[in-house]
């Protein structure tokens, strides 16, 4: 595989988030976006004059606004500047960071601000998601984003009791992380001794997927500022977080061919294999100090950990059972509470590298991992099981 050559290095130097809630009725879209942008600029101790390009993206039909970046020019600071609007799916937040990385690395722009947002209550999210399916056929079958097929596959492989317990343990662990993050949206205060009760009492949505396992919907926005190595050398308000590499793996719209007699490779594993191979990382579990993974549900969280970390057999269950994904475990997963705790879809995938960057900076407050974080991994999910991955580093030494 050809060695990956970056034209110049890029760092994250500003991170801004709005509060997350289920209905942000006291702000319109522009105001919400503006709050995130101002927070990011304040974090970087920069003004809009320093920014030369804005990168925007979202799924139009969620808020029913055609080409929203036009209206949002009022709030995201793109007046008089270059601007790009790039989207993928739920992965968009992560894609925007990847795109901004390319724009700065190319030398065409020096300071790029990217922005992800969601105001779900302004549209109809399920409608938005259902509208993703082909109108001729799949739209009639589509149930939104709820499915228990992954749980079924895992149960087939490892047995019901073990999988259900591991998934519920994952859920409680995630909630414990969320309780440390004052920004997280859903913080339930769950305890491990509730595991059996929740397994029984949480209402079933689809098959073994219960209400407790699923992420919910949130409104909110996130903005990040990326800059080149030259500027970092001149001095930044906060320690820079370097973007080492990123990769995206997509697949077609057809969801039927996921559960045939032979299952295809997941885009998660495909993306991870490519990214790690070209970066010489043989053991991601050992290499990374934190993983902010896009986990829409506890089952997917568990299954995708196996895929991303290139684990075999029941390794992932063993690690889960041994608590190795806890805050003080071998590889802390979602110290922020992840997607299950907070899901402003357009921003969710950006929050993953944002939270990973905060960990590297040592800036995560209540949910900061105690051990030094030098190597971080972040992932995005969306579309028809698409994957985006980013590798972040504390130092320029790879």
């Amino acid at each position, binding site marked *: 595989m050809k060695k990956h050559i970056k034209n110049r290095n890029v760092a994250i130097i500003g991170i801004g988030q709005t509060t997350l809630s289920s209905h942000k009725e006291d702000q319109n879209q522009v105001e919400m976006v503006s709050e995130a942008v101002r927070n990011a600029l304040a974090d970087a101790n920069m003004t809009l004059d320093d920014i030369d390009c804005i990168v925007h993206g979202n799924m139009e039909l969620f808020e029913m606004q055609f080409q929203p970046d036009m209206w949002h*020019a009022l709030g995201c600071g793109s007046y008089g500047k270059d601007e790009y609007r790039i989207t993928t799916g739920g992965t968009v937040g992560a894609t925007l960071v990847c795109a901004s990385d*390319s724009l700065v690395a190319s030398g065409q*722009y020096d300071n790029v601000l990217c922005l992800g947002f969601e105001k779900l209550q302004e549209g109809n999210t399920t409608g938005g998601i259902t509208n993703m399916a082909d109108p001729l056929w799949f739209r009639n079958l589509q149930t939104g984003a709820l499915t228990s097929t992954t749980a079924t596959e895992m149960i087939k492989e490892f047995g019901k009791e073990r999988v259900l317990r591991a998934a519920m343990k994952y859920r409680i662990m995630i909630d414990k992380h969320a309780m440390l993050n004052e920004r997280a949206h859903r913080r339930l205060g769950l305890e491990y001794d509730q595991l059996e009760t929740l397994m029984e009492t949480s209402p079933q949505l689809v098959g073994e997927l219960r209400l407790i396992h699923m992420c919910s919907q949130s409104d909110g926005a996130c903005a990040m500022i990326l800059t080149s190595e030259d500027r970092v050398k001149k001095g930044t308000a906060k320690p820079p977080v370097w973007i080492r590499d990123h990769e995206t793996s997509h697949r077609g719209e057809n969801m039927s061919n996921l559960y045939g007699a032979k299952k295809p490779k997941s885009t998660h594993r495909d993306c991870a294999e490519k990214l790690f191979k070209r970066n010489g990382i043989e053991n991601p579990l050992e290499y990374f100090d934190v993983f902010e993974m896009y986990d829409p549900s506890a089952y997917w969280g568990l299954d995708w950990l196996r895929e991303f970390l290139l684990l075999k057999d029941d390794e992932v269950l063993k690690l889960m059972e041994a608590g190795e994904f806890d805050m003080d475990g071998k590889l802390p997963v979602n110290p922020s509470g992840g997607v299950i705790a907070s899901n402003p879809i357009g921003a969710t995938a950006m929050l993953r590298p944002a939270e990973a960057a905060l960990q590297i900076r040592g800036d995560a407050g209540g949910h900061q991992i105690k051990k030094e974080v030098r190597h971080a991994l972040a992932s995005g999910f969306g579309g028809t099981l698409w994957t985006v991955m980013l590798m972040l580093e504390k130092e320029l030494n790879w």
Partner: protein
Amino acid sequence: MATKRVAICAVAQHKNEPDLWYRRFQNMLLDVLEDLQGQTGFKYGEGGVEMIVSTSDDFFDARTISNNGVTDVIGGQYLAEEKMAQEGLNAIGYANAIILSGHKDLVLIMGHCKESQGESRNMITNCGFDPFYGRATGLDYLNAAGLQARAYMKKSGLTDDQLAEIVVRSRQWAVKNPYANAQEAIPAGKVKSSPMLCDPIRQLHAYPVSDGAVGLLLASEERAKEFTDNPVWITGFANCMDTFFFGDRDLTSNFALKKATANACRKAGIQDLKKAADVVEVMDCYAYQQPMWMEGLGFCGEGEGGRFIAEGGPGKHRVNLSGGTLAGNPLIIAGLYRAAEATLQLQGGAGDRQVPDAKCAVAHSTNGPAGQFHSVLILEA
């Protein structure tokens, strides 16, 4: 060391049609893909194309994540694909950056749009205004253009006769373009008597409803020769955003276009674009936009659009020899059609429209109401 410059190796266009009711996007894009593969022999996967930038719009497609329906056709299976969710010319600017950054050395661009699918493109563009005020007043991109047209005609002295002249000329060139939609030659009288859509914009001043698809293959300098003997180099790209509310803008100022032009020229090392460019392709959805965008690009002085037309500017500067958007492109990929024509001209592949010895071309596009956002691409052979 990453590459120093990026080339467009090949372009493929689906003919712009008024109503492709019998073909899906997938069919259209497959034709474009096969055309590109035939021209270049490119493959997907390791050592080949690993990144695709698609262009489409969720409203026009009536489909969230509109690119997911065509992922299989454009080659996104287990590869990276991102959607340029704004006007397609920006996909070229973005792909240019991806290759310059060293992240990938080949990028495939595939855009599609069918204006005929929804009952009204004006209903769609109405949703581009803020829900509380703009939308409620019934603004859409057509009547927004009407406001701008009226203001610009006053400022520049552009006349109704001249608008008709622009349309007539567009048709004369479109007939030489196998990919154009509206090729029927029409006399000026017919343009002037066509019904008013939104004063001063008449029906024949407006770009016809169109369906289409465009593909381009971009490569780093080192790899371009694998795919073409005629690389067309991207020497400058920039875009610029104006503000949103009309009350805050001077609709005739070309603020965003002037800034984008200046930045693109700076990157290309061009001091005087009107001297340097051999071919110009501007996105003229409405007739008044041709002289207005030419003024923004610096081909005539402030407020001189009327004079530009009177003195035969479009002919002199080889403007829109493809017929332009006036001959019919769907909204979100019109810029890609402009870039396609510019590329063909520089490759010597423009048939009856060919400008001899064309070395430098400008492709332009606009997005948002009344030209709120503009993109400028400078290409050189």
